[in-house]
């Protein structure tokens, strides 16, 4: 087996994963693309282990470790995505822009759904307009006020 063949396949898989991470909007699809990139690395490790005849079997053992870490990563990632969905009712990466400064055109619409802390079961669609947090109960508003006071 020429080593070029698995190396080229894994390079192609890696760049497909890069494309998926950059181009997809749904967070779960981004996770799938990350899995593709991890699998490219695994193929490389196995191929080089076979090529170099490592006496410690480093390549294949590290492949097993990468698979385990990928399982842990997917579990944690999905838990984070579910928490995100519970709080904001969306997993759309383009709409999760809280770290960015609000632009002139957007009237804080991207910020508001976060301020009203939604707890417990799902409450239907998130408030999207400006001042959406104000439509929540008074307790939620006061909580968000104290929270913003703490953070400032």
């Amino acid at each position, binding site marked *: 087996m*020429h080593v070029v063949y698995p190396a080229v396949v894994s390079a192609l898989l*890696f760049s497909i994963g890069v*494309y998926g991470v950059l181009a997809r909007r749904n967070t*779960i699809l981004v996770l799938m693309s990350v899995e593709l990139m991890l699998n490219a690395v695994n193929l490389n490790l196995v191929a080089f282990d076979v090529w170099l005849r490592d006496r410690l079997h480093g390549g294949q053992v590290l492949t097993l470790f990468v698979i385990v870490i990928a399982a842990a990563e*997917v579990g944690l990632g999905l838990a984070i995505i*579910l928490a995100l969905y519970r709080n904001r009712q969306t997993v759309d990466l383009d709409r999760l822009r809280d770290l960015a400064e609000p632009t002139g055109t957007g009237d804080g619409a991207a910020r508001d759904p976060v301020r009203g802390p939604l707890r417990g079961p799902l409450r239907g669609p998130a408030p999207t307009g400006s001042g959406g947090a104000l439509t929540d109960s008074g307790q939620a508003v006061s909580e968000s006020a104290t929270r913003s006071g703490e953070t400032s």
Partner: protein
Amino acid sequence: MTEAPSYLSPTGQEIVFLLLGAVAVGSALLVVTTRQLVHAALWLVVCFGALAGGYLVLTAEFVAWVQVLIYVGAIVALLLFGIMLTRAPIGRTADLDSRNRPAAAVVAVATAVVLVTVVIDGFRTAYAPLEPGGGSAKELGSSIFRNWVLPFEALSVLLLAALIGAIVLSRTDIRGRD
């Protein structure tokens, strides 16, 4: 290493590996381009299965079965659960791609060109004769428990931490101290 035979007379193993690699790359392309969310997960199964076949051809049997068990069995099932729990639209949806898709395509093609060029240039003469038995469960097990015990135990602690973290993140009645 041993003398490399010509590229013009591929062995049967190389042909099988190339076919499996074509299946893997094609289904990976479908994963990142399909318009249906559930189909992406199912194409991921095809891609991982083809990769497991590639591991088998490369004589890494144990890794191949672990790949089937964990990736195809556990991770894709978890991803399907995630799709279901986030109430993703079933069926064709137009807005799975973001607006920076052309830039992503440019970056991905550039990455592919650079990587493939470097890899072909670097490993043109490398040849790995395949001998069965190198990746059996016995070999790998003795290797793990002789030489890799410490990382193995660290990984088990990592898995425990990830498990507890996932539980804490996904339960709603656990709150931080105010």
